[in-house]
């Protein structure tokens, strides 16, 4: 453990608690990602956003049209799903093709031997011309105005044509680039909207993890204060986590999650035998992860739970610990686990807590609620908090925020 400028049990207990929150927040993020993958939510959200972006009630919903375009349609895995991501170039190409197709007409004309044959008119015209014609044919609308402006802005002088009227030619590459920027800007704004949509789910998942792992924040805080060994162990891991976050070049949540997990796995693997404290969560996860699309998330959650198990934190469901210890033994179907050897002061505290009383029940309820709320703040929040706290602990180093690190 590194030398600390601030060596205060209360401060260290806070760091330990923040470390637990940061760690469990990773689990919540992984679960949310797995849930989104299973429900194909990102794809559905993207589809809705693009439908909204390109909906022109006076003409067509070009969002629907570009989802029919082979570039986008081929990205779908099955009839039930939509692509999670559409590159700007693919979007621009699909939109241009769709608009240009409005200038094409298929006629079925009389052919030889009592037949009709197809006659597609306009196909041989260059794409840029077809695009302009397709836009011209649209009913007047705000979307048409937008497209016309895009086209006008991307016309370049064509000196080789002598006629005054034909001096400008549409530069398709420039237009594609501008359409791509427009799409990217819109998607950036929509990312915020998606995150807002996720907040409710994050709260639910946070609470679910708190309940399933029986994480009572008030209890944890008390144990961290009473148990120096555990506190020191947690501070050591908090410092390692902070170092991993600061060292990570990629500051995206996913990258930080991987870096932290790698660091902690290296620290703890194989030290302690796995217990069954997380059985409830494991059973729930088996249902969530019963799908080939969430293999990565399954591996990450397995590693997280393995590391968590090795920390031997006072959490998880056990017949000998609150709140199960409050109910009649006969009701409790789980195997009895031998109590962990504890110091006298801890033993006293645990004995009192395991006795059934209204006060303990209320404290447990609020403790779990606090955990649920804390986990819903998300991993990035707790990573930042952890880095700041560790920096303060280490001789008052000025903490770096994520924004500063990004800069």
């Amino acid at each position, binding site marked *: 453990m590194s030398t600390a400028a601030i060596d205060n049990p209360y401060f260290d207990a806070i760091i330990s608690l923040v470390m637990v929150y940061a760690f469990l927040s990773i689990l919540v993020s992984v679960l949310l990602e797995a849930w989104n993958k299973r429900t194909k939510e990102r794809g559905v959200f993207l589809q809705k956003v693009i439908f909204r972006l390109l909906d*022109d009630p006076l*003409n067509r919903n070009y969002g629907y049209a570009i989802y029919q375009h082979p570039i986008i349609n081929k990205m779908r895995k099955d009839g039930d799903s939509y692509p999670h991501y559409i590159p700007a170039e693919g979007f621009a190409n699909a939109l241009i093709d769709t608009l240009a197709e409005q200038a094409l007409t*298929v006629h079925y004309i009389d052919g030889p031997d009592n037949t009709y*044959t197809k006659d*597609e008119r306009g196909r*041989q015209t260059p794409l840029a*011309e077809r695009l302009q014609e397709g836009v011209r044919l649209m009913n007047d609308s705000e979307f048409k105005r937008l497209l016309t402006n895009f086209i006008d802005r991307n016309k370049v002088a064509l000196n080789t044509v002598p006629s005054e009227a034909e001096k400008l030619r549409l530069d398709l590459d420039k237009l594609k680039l501008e359409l791509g920027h427009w799409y990217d800007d819109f998607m950036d704004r929509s990312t915020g909207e998606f995150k807002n949509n996720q907040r409710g789910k994050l709260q639910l998942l946070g609470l679910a993890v708190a309940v399933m792992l029986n994480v009572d924040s008030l209890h944890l805080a008390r144990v961290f204060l009473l148990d120096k060994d555990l506190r020191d162990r947690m501070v050591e891991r908090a410092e390692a986590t902070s170092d991993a976050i600061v060292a990570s070049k990629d500051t995206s949540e996913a990258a930080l999650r991987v870096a932290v997990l790698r660091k902690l796995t290296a620290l703890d693997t194989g030290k302690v035998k796995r217990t069954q404290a997380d059985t409830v969560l494991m059973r729930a996860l088996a249902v969530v992860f019963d799908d080939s699309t969430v293999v990565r998330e399954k591996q990450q959650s397995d590693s997280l739970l393995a590391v968590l198990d090795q920390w031997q934190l006072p959490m998880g469901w056990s017949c000998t610990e609150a709140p199960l210890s409050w109910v009649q033994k006969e009701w409790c179907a789980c195997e009895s686990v031998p109590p962990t050897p504890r110091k006298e002061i801890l033993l006293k505290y645990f004995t009192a807590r395991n006795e059934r009383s209204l006060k303990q029940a209320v404290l447990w309820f609020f403790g779990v609620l606090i955990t649920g709320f804390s986990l819903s703040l998300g991993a990035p929040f707790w990573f930042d908090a952890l880095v700041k706290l560790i920096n303060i602990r280490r001789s008052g180093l000025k903490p770096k925020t994520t924004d500063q690190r990004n800069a």
Partner: protein
Amino acid sequence: MERYTNIHSHVFSGGCVPDYFLKTILPKRFHAYADEIMWILRSERVRSALEVWAEWRGPARLLRRNSKLLRIIQFLRVGAQNTQEEVFLCMKQAYAALGPNTRFVALTLNMDHMDVQSSSHARIEDQLAEIERVRAHYPDTFLPFVCADPRHKQGNDLRDWVKEKVERRAFMGIKLYPAIGYFPFDTGLDALYAWAEQNAVPIMTHCTRQGTFYTGSMAQVLPDPKPAGLHSTAPEMADIHARIKRFMNNDLTWDHSNYGCNIFLHPQNYEPVLRKYPRLKLCFAHFGGDDELLNKAQELRTRKLDDTNWHVEVKRIMGLYANVYTDISYTLHNPKVYTQLAGLIDGPLGERILFGTDCFMTLKEAPEADLLKRCMGGLGMDRFNRIAARNTDTYLRSQHFEPAKTTVLTWTRSTPTLNTPEP
């Protein structure tokens, strides 16, 4: 060998359907949760689980009684296809027994005006553009009808819009679906009828008391108990106005938009149109519906909504006008109707009864291939040949389309025809 045509089918995919479409299927008390229910049912696993559940004895009985849930599941299963082409191919597979040349009339539906709520579904022009692509891929077997709605375009605008599509043979006829909020005698359809009559272009109209309906408030589409008509002096208008007034004064019907079918789709609504355009080639789909055909529409009579038997009404109108047709789509799912249908096909109206299934709406009743078998077996092949080959050809024949001709899959690429100059 006969060449068969299914005169009544739909191929729209989930993307064509507005967000509020589920209201046409769900009971009113669930309308507020339509989005959430749609979200849950979009999952293939959920749909499969519900179907397994529906196979159990108890729940199955419960489900089959109102069949709402199964209808949603089946609809979404097919509608969840990526494209209308995939929906078409699903349907085509079921007709292997009739040979690869079997033709399908795909009826498009303008769902943009089904409610005043906003929805970011595929607009009608998207649906038609996609339909045209399917026709380009299967020009000889895919024969779409273009839907007309006087709230989309009116008068000469509507006529020219339809005319352009029918004249270049991208679409073979016109589809009307008044239940989504307009009357067939709307003045906005006048020019279209005139042109359709002159060119013998077939019109298909939905005609049962069930089906998709206007999901908003009735007050939005029925502001006046005496809506103007294209033939205001027609004697039927008095009856029609009286019925609309009764409908508006009846709290039950006025508050539940699903009863709108009773008022907008009534066969008598077409009589002013047919008086003005007696040679109009009009097909009343579903032959009034199986309940009416079997005279089982007791529920409606007890509610004093309307005492008319639509099946009888359709037959009466067919007797008056030589170009009025009917089809047996959806009605054919009921095995009890076949004896009566066989008699009707052998009777004087037999040449104007057409074969159609209403695929994929009928999936809640039976798989398409089973319905086909049921129909061929129930009517006998001779009658089936008449209604599915000869009668359908007569109905489809117009100034612009000859069903005896085949459309070959070769391209003739014309010279550029755009107005803009070449660089």
